[in-house]
């Protein structure tokens, strides 16, 4: 990984680091989900990302960025369970597809990949901003990334802007009333709780920002 691009190994590092953050935070994510969902978000995502790490581990040395993300996405679709599997799996697969055969993703390509991920999530789940879902973290994240990029920021700064915006977006879900997913059955009672999907999106984008500055070495041990 150079300072301004991410290769397949770097993106594999992202998946591993994200898996580590999810595993470390699984209990909190499950607790958030128990408040308004069906209480399995952390467990599901931990299982899915563990499978993703195994899948990318099985790829040949030097696999291209697209192959890494698509393999991770497929594993997540297959093994996660809940709504998160199809949603995160589709996000990663769409991101991977935009990277085509390139050996490295620069800031522009990574931004396009994140935008494609968002598009995939919205197409599949049909959620809009304000519905109290992962989209409430992902929309501001993509907007912040694109804003930073347009302002001439480098890849790491764009990724950090995205992660910060995702965290703020997740916090902003607290007062919202859910209009999608199991929480939507609770109506007004879903307000006052942070959406678990938005929380996990913020975590996964934090992992991306970490690896762009060389942090987050996930060694595979917890």
């Amino acid at each position: 990984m150079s300072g301004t691009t991410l290769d397949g190994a770097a993106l594999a590092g992202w998946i591993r680091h994200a898996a580590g953050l999810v595993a470390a935070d699984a209990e909190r994510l499950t607790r958030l989900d128990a408040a308004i969902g069906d209480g399995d978000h952390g467990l599901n995502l931990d299982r899915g990302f563990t499978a993703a790490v195994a899948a990318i581990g099985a790829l040949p040395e030097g696999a291209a960025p697209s192959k890494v993300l698509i393999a991770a996405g497929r594993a997540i679709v297959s093994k996660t369970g809940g709504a998160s599997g199809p949603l995160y799996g589709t996000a990663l697969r769409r991101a991977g597809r935009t990277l085509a055969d390139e050996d490295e993703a620069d800031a522009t390509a990574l931004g396009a990949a994140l935008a494609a991920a968002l598009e995939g999530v919205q197409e599949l789940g049909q959620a809009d901003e304000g519905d109290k879902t992962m989209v409430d973290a992902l929309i501001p994240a993509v907007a912040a990334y694109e804003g930073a990029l347009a302002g001439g920021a480098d890849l790491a700064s764009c990724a950090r802007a995205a992660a910060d915006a995702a965290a703020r977006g997740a916090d902003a879900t607290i007062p919202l009333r859910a209009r999608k997913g199991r929480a939507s059955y609770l109506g007004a009672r879903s307000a006052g709780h942070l959406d678990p999907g938005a929380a996990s999106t913020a975590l996964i984008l934090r992992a991306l920002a970490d690896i762009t500055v060389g942090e987050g070495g996930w060694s595979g041990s917890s």
Partner: protein
Amino acid sequence: MVGIVVISHSRTLADGVTEMARALGVGKAKVEPAGGDVDGGFGTSIDLVRHAVAAVDGGDGVVLLADLGSSVLTAKTFIEDTEGGAVLLADAPLVEGAVAAASMAAAGADLATVHAAAEAAREHRKT
């Protein structure tokens, strides 16, 4: 004959709806359940959906029925991976849609007709 797959978070619910659909498909309709996760627990599995579709696909297409939430997302994700438009998700209530689809499929209708019948089941009133 158009095949039908019943997707549910619950294995027993998928099995039960399949039983009903087979009965109302007068023993002719090809209906398979894809309920629960791969370990038999609560949830949905794209792998079980794939397996069930393969079991009912006789070359005339397949209609998917899904209960709610991640069953729908799993169905849509499965379809995105399928080429040729031969698998359709019905925007229909699980039981009523499966029964309508099975009846129509048993009568030899094509994919579009079976799919439309499943979706029309949304309008069936009970009172």
